[in-house]
């Protein structure tokens, strides 16, 4: 996949990723956000909100995820000048999201114990939440990566670009996470999936 860096005519250079999403050098936009550029913020949100959403969805009830995504970006915006290395933005905002989820769980544990997802009468919805619950039981690395791929529709390369993980690590996380998920869901092909990159 083509790496995209720098500016052309004052605008971040853009290329098209394998899933058809525009890819922008995040460091350029992160610096611009720190300088108060609203358009750059919209691009940063577009680039990273799916990753943040996936991290939160793996940890907190769905009904609160959207609000927490907003919280995470507000926190990131207020603290963005503390970030000395714009290329580390992905790992940085991912940490903010994980910490925000931890804080949320602490607070809700101290308040009234609310039920988690309520599937209702829709059988597809019930199955969706059943699968989500199984993914939430996976180790962090597999859980986050699988949710970015299966829920948010990010490609493996996009996940690597956003999280700062090596593409090889993402591929292994996807493969092993999917293998564990198949086992949990009781799929017959759980043991016989291809292992092309281990």
């Amino acid at each position: 996949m083509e790496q995209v860096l720098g500016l052309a005519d004052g605008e971040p250079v853009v290329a098209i990723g394998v899933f058809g999403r525009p890819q922008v050098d995040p460091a350029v936009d992160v610096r611009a956000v720190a300088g108060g550029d609203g358009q750059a913020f919209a691009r940063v949100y577009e680039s990273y909100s799916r990753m943040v959403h996936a991290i939160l969805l793996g940890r907190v009830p769905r009904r609160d995820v959207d609000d927490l995504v907003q919280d995470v970006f507000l926190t990131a915006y207020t603290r963005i000048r503390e970030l000395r290395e714009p290329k580390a933005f992905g790992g940085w905002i991912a940490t903010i999201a994980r910490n925000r989820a931890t804080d949320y769980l602490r607070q809700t544990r101290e308040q009234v114990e609310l039920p988690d997802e309520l599937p209702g009468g829709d059988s597809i919805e019930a199955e969706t939440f059943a699968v989500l619950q199984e993914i939430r039981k996976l180790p962090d690395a597999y859980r986050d990566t699988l949710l970015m791929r299966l829920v948010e529709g990010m490609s493996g390369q996009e996940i690597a670009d956003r999280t700062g993980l090596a593409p090889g690590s993402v591929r292994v996380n996807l493969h092993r996470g999917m293998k564990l998920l198949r086992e949990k869901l009781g799929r017959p092909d759980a043991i016989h999936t291809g292992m092309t990159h281990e």
Partner: protein
Amino acid sequence: MSDDYLWDGSGPPDPEVERLERLLGRLRNTAPAPSFDELSRGAAGLKTRHEVSWTSARFIVPTLAAAAAIVAMIGVTWQTTRRTHSWEVERMAGRPRIGSTLVSNTGRLGVGETLTTDAASRARLDVSTIGQATVDTDSRVRLVDTREGHHQLALERGTLHAFIIAPPGQFVVETPSATATDLGCVYTLHVDEDGTGVLSVTAGWVAFEFNGRESFVPAGASSRTDPRVGPGTPRFDDAEPEIQAALDDLDYGTDAAKKAQDLQVVLEKARARDAMTLWHLIARVASADRGAVIDALAARVPMPAAVSRDAVMRLDKTALDQWWDALGLRDASWWRKWKGPLPQ
């Protein structure tokens, strides 16, 4: 079956992945980006909330209510205090312990408490709000201090991986033979039972110090440490093995003749990239050998015009700083300005 479809949607579709995409895609993030103006106002509100006057009448009733609530909260204050002075611990494998208490899933490591892992256990620490640290098997780590702007661990033995996003100097790890001060980075620190250890930096910088002896370790480089001497001379991990062995002997050997040979090996075989190592050696070799080290460094990275050989021979701080800047490594001036003189 290949996992190309799982990777990026290419190749023959995996029916199970397709099914899960259809199911879980319903949960995809669809919220629009918040308005930047609202965000800016929200941020300003966060910053100035404490400046709002509470003396007007409309605040009196809520204030009295708040006072009553404060009284009611006294019973839980200890818990808040404990949170402020402790870090979240998450079990990753096996049975880590805080003191004598097993960490089943999560726990809290308070100031003065020790987290211990055995041969089968690992744990992750939230370093306040500034990052994370993973404690590997067979490790002992104690929380020395945690407060705004300063967070300190003591790694008594074992291995710790740190990922820190705070400004330089906020995260410090003591070991029996050196103290690692994070300058904004990702690194691994290992300590053996005898107090010797090694620091390997993946991203950013770490300053490694013991009794005034300092090493600045950049990404891709490592530094050994030993309680008898302190931090060894840093070297890039891809340096020639012969140079690395010679540096180890220079740092910790006792045979003067052998050390003289070692120095020659380093001076002759150092690459341009090893200028960082030669720069550290200027202050570490005997004054009789200093001229040769200066010449070797100058052959790889020319001495800046404003720097004189005499000044470097005297270990003049300004001169060494200027030459450091010419090495083309990332700026470490924050540490140098804060700590004063360069490695002795």
